[in-house]
């Protein structure tokens, strides 16, 4: 615990491993670390597979390091649904920072062993925050729910898009418009970038009111999402992106002077922990002493129904 706070890399790496593996000790350490969190700026980077997220993160690391800020990166890739294994390759694009002691990059697989719930990312971010890293950059692939999860966690959310991938339409469908603070239209060395930017701006403008309502709870009031063209392989547009990030940070910090804004954030954070605690508890109950097997037997012989049984199981938790 002390070692983690003193930014001992080995101790931090081990704690992260415990969190990832769901080891019981992790929880009690997290409890103690909590009072040391709240200082880091947390930036989420999400978007479709191959949009250029990791290359962009690599560029951001370079810029933040030039400002003498320390950077931790949480890179999340999907686990294989078949084997449960994963190849975690985001680092490839960031290896030039491997020897920089002001940079800590950690890859995670989604795992999703708790019936699809990932969730430990929030704990990982807390650890980096408590360790005293100035910036925590969280890269996740945008598939359905994940973007929403990253946005609950991050102070600033960057959605990376590549032109000509039909991303704009998908953006509306997936509700990405509502979660992005900043859009990076990456690979704008390719055809169609200007069109993507135009369409995005148009859609943002049309949906202005809806977006601001949606974001009321999470976004600094009055913030309208920025759209920025980047070529992350060449470092183009990164200055503009850094400016937008700094502006959003300022807006966020201003918003934090409003107790209602902070309350909404704490509420969200708590509900996230609550949801995971409840689920883990319920899961281990069901897995314990054939409880789940008994449930299935009752369903099979027709002596009960899923609604009654689910309620009974939840009630049993309270008595444990």
């Amino acid at each position, binding site marked *: 615990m002390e070692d983690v706070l003193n930014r001992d890399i080995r101790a931090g790496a081990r704690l992260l491993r415990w969190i990832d593996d769901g080891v019981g000790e992790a929880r009690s350490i997290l409890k103690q670390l909590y009072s040391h969190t709240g200082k880091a700026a947390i930036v989420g980077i999400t978007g479709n597979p191959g949009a250029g997220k990791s290359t962009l993160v690599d560029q951001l690391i370079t810029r933040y390091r030039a400002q003498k800020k320390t950077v931790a990166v949480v890179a999340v890739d999907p686990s294989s649904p078949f084997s449960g*294994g994963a190849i975690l390759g985001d680092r490839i694009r960031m290896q030039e920072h491997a020897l920089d002691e002001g940079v800590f990059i950690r890859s995670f697989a989604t795992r999703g062993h708790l019936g699809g719930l990932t969730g430990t990312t929030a704990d990982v971010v807390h650890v980096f925050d408590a360790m005293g890293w100035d910036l925590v950059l969280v890269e996740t692939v945008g598939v359905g729910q994940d973007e929403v999860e990253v946005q609950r966690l991050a102070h600033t959310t960057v959605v990376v898009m590549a032109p000509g991938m039909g991303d704009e339409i998908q953006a509306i469908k997936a509700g990405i418009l509502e979660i992005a603070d900043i859009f990076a239209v990456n690979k704008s060395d390719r055809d169609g970038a200007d069109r993507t930017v135009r369409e995005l701006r148009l859609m943002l403008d049309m949906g202005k009111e809806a977006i601001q309502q949606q974001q009321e709870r999470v976004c600094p009031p009055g913030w309208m999402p920025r759209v920025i063209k980047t070529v992350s392989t060449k470092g183009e547009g990164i200055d503009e992106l850094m400016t937008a990030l700094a502006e959003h940070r300022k807006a966020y910090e201003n918003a934090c002077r409003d107790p209602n804004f902070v309350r909404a954030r704490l509420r969200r954070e708590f509900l996230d922990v609550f949801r995971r605690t409840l689920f883990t508890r319920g899961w281990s109950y069901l897995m314990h002493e054939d409880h789940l097997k008994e449930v299935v037997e009752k369903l099979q012989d027709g002596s009960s129904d899923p609604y009654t049984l689910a309620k009974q199981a939840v009630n049993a938790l309270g008595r444990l």
Partner: protein
Amino acid sequence: MDEERKIRVLIAKPGLDGHDRGAKVVARSLRDAGMEVIYTGLHQTPEMIVATAIQEGVDAVGMSIMSGAHNVLMPAVVDGLLAKGAEDIVVFGGGIIPDDDMESLKKKGIKGLFTPGTSTETIISWVRENVKPS
């Protein structure tokens, strides 16, 4: 909490040669065996491999070296891990390695050595046998 320990392996490609096919095949088969594999790409120095292994909290490091520089690069990683107090990380490697070199590399702490043509099944069961999730 619900414990789910998984084996995490760093597959690295040190040295100057650009043949990473073997490394990629091994990475994929370990993934298919349910392990989490961190892959870092070409031209990694031993220092980079050591720093990466520690940050990523891996249980093992596997290196693929086709350039003949195994006698220098593999022990450098073992020594680097030792210097950082991470000697519990198991080191293994593959490449065109003469028998004489095998002996001395094993003495220097490279626990498993595989020559081209070794089946992926052999490598997977060796990892399962010799690497335990921390």
